[in-house]
């Protein structure tokens, strides 16, 4: 069939089952937008910044399990995608990012809006292409979708010169891919699987450690069965939250710098660490010389490069988490380590999370627990910093793909556009972005997108007037020298919030007014008894985004904490600090 490159792209999107994409127009991609004009079955959500588009595609992918697609123009359009691509790449999120490029005869001439997109995106993507021949376009797109969602998922960039978009050719979108160098392994090695099962059955102090790979492979159900059968306790990385219910008696919470006491103690004391879909990130392990020193480590991961990179692994299994667990499950027995299991569960009871705060402001932990009461089935996004760690500790996660956060790259500004993407993909769910006053200002322009699209995303700002996590480090490790972390109006802290819900605090912007300026709803909460009514009001609004400005205690910290460079057994709690 004769068609332009742009027509082939839209055909490819339809063939790949894509009905929603995120993007922003520009000179180099006008031909694609021109075709989209006639194809309302491929809906485009117009973000207000390309970074918003990529994060939205990312949030859409994490929440729905489908590939997220975004579209940006050449040069600045493409460079604006970098942070979003790096975020998705770190957390293994399938995205296909299509960028326009200047016409082929201008590449390399410093043409208007030219950038070496392939060179720029190479280190932050799973794979990328510059399409130099119109005849390659169909094959490249087919490969891009295949690569993005198979093996360890990740973002793939397809950079297409404008003249390729306009070139007419008689070709079809291919049905098959053939990549001789790319053969992801899903099935684990049978002997290794038997060894792992035997080790787990015989361990005196066994522990499961699960991560983001569990969500990506859809391993929740089989893992639930394994936990019920064996009774072995479970910890998770930040990215593994939601696989087990936060309240499950077997679940100890997450490990790491802000992990729970019970989880960090369990890692330190266990003799067998059965890890699945994790990558032993430094924020999770702390000092590697003190990490699980008594344990043999089993590691299941689809990506061989994550195995034995940071910790020595006794039994490596390369494969997909769900596929491998399905083979492991029948070989497992109820654990005989009753003393250990009892001890671990007691420790959990002895170390409850503490939501108290030092000053008069609202408690962020309490607010997040209330969000959990009002929205127990919410899709929860966060920005990065204290807001993220409080959410990880206090929200009652209960199912897979309900937790969207930038784990690896730690991207401030991720949560809100990701929430927008998730809400666009799952209109029947309530999506809540738990933000800090610092992070939310990094992609606040997406309020316009949400209002336009009538997306009722709830943005709960935990406003402490500070870049809170950095302030916490300054408090603990830099003698309270709060260098450039105070965001209140004068740039200096003028004591506790002294305001009621109607009066704006000494802070700019006034988030309630800002929400209204965008056409969103804005609510300020200054007292504990206002928390539930504000959340209930937000729940009742279903046609526009709602910003709730919670004035929290300015010096509330995230506890427990393992100081940077220390071992997981060297945590400090709020009482000790």
């Amino acid at each position, binding site marked *: 069939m004769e068609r332009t490159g742009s027509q082939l792209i839209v055909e490819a999107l339809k063939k790949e089952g894509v009905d929603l994409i995120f993007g922003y127009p520009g000179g180099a991609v006008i031909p694609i937008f021109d075709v989209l004009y006639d194809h309302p079955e491929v809906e485009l959500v117009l973000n207000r910044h390309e970074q918003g588009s990529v994060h939205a595609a990312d949030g859409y992918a994490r929440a729905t399990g489908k590939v997220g697609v975004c579209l940006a123009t050449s040069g600045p359009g493409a460079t604006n995608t970098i942070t979003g691509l790096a975020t998705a790449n770190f957390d293994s999120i399938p995205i296909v990012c299509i960028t326009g490029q200047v016409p082929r005869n201008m590449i390399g001439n410093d043409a208007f809006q030219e950038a070496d997109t*392939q*060179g720029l995106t*190479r*280190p932050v993507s*799973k*794979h990328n292409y*510059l399409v*130099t021949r119109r005849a390659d376009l169909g094959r490249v797109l087919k490969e891009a979708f295949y*690569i993005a969602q198979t093996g360890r998922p990740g973002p793939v960039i397809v950079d297409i010169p404008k003249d390729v978009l306009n070139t007419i050719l008689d070709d079809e979108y291919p049905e098959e891919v053939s*990549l*001789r*160098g*790319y*053969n992801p392994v899903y099935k684990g090695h049978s002997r290794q699987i038997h060894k792992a099962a035997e080790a787990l059955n015989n361990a005196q102090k066994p522990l499961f450690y699960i991560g983001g790979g569990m969500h990506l492979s859809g391993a929740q159900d089989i893992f639930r069965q394994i936990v019920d059968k064996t009774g072995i306790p479970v910890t998770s990385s930040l990215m593994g939250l939601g696989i087990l219910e936060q309240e499950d008696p077997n679940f100890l919470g997450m490990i790491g710098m802000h992990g729970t006491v019970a989880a960090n103690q369990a890692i330190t004391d266990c003799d067998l660490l059965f890890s699945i879909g994790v990558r032993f990130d430094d924020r999770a392990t702390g000092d590697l010389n003190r990490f699980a020193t008594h344990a043999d480590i089993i590691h299941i991961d689809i*990506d*061989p*490069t994550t195995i*034995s*990179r940071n910790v020595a692994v006794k039994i490596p299994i390369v494969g997909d988490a769900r596929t491998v667990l399905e083979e492991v499950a029948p070989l497992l027995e109820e654990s005989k380590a009753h003393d250990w299991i009892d001890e671990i569960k007691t420790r959990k009871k002895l170390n409850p999370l503490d939501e108290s705060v030092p000053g008069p402001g609202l408690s962020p932990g309490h607010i997040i627990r209330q969000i959990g009461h009002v929205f127990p089935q919410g899709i929860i996004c966060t920005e990065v910093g204290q807001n993220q760690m409080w959410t990880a500790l206090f929200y009652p996660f209960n199912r897979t793909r309900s937790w969207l956060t930038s784990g690896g790259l730690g991207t401030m500004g991720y949560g809100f556009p990701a929430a927008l993407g998730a809400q666009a993909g799952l209109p029947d769910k309530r999506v809540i972005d738990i933000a800090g006053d610092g992070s939310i200002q990094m992609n606040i322009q997406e309020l316009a997108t949400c209002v336009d699209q009538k997306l009722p995303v709830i943005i709960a700002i935990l406003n402490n007037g500070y870049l809170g996590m950095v302030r916490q480090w300054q408090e603990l490790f830099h003698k309270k020298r709060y260098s450039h972390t105070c965001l209140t109006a004068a740039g200096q802290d003028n004591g506790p919030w002294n305001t009621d819900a109607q009066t704006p605090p000494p802070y700019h912007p006034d988030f309630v007014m800002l929400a209204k300026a965008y056409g969103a709803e804005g609510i300020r909460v200054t007292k504990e008894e206002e928390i539930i009514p504000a959340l209930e009001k937000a729940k009742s609004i279903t046609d526009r985004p709602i910003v709730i400005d919670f004035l929290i205690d300015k010096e509330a910290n995230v506890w427990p904490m393992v100081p940077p460079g220390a071992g997981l057994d060297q945590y400090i709690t709020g009482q000790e600090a």
Partner: protein
Amino acid sequence: MRHIISLLVENKPGVVSRVSGLFSGRGYSLESITYGETMDPSLCRVTLTSTGDETAIEQILKQLHRLIDTIKVQNLTDHKAITRELAIVKVRADKGYRAEIIKMAETYKATVLDVSTDSFVMEITGSTRKIEDFIEVMSEYTILDIARSGLVALEKGSKTTKGKKS
């Protein structure tokens, strides 16, 4: 320890920068890198040398293997592989030393490629050790310029690297 890594990759634009970018981006050592087409023009062979402990090299091999365009990765040790390097050496050849330099070149089976009134340009191929010995000997005179190719290597015996990723 120096490791010789031989890669079979798709002969596509950007593949070599993907390989070298992996080294710069992850802070691995990359001492030399050469590449060229194979018998199959759709494939390229990249030969590179790197140093590092076992853990680092294992990680390098895995990361190289993970690249979408990589067909095969081999860690070749010196005794299992034929390795060659090429160097072009320009030496000042004043009248009194010309015969001596040519004799020395013959000893090393180096070829004189260019002669001028006061210089020679010579080509030498061989193991890295041989090249280095030759350069050391030539530095007795005055070396004006050197161009070295980096290593190329192929496994000994009849086994080939064709076929699927292993």
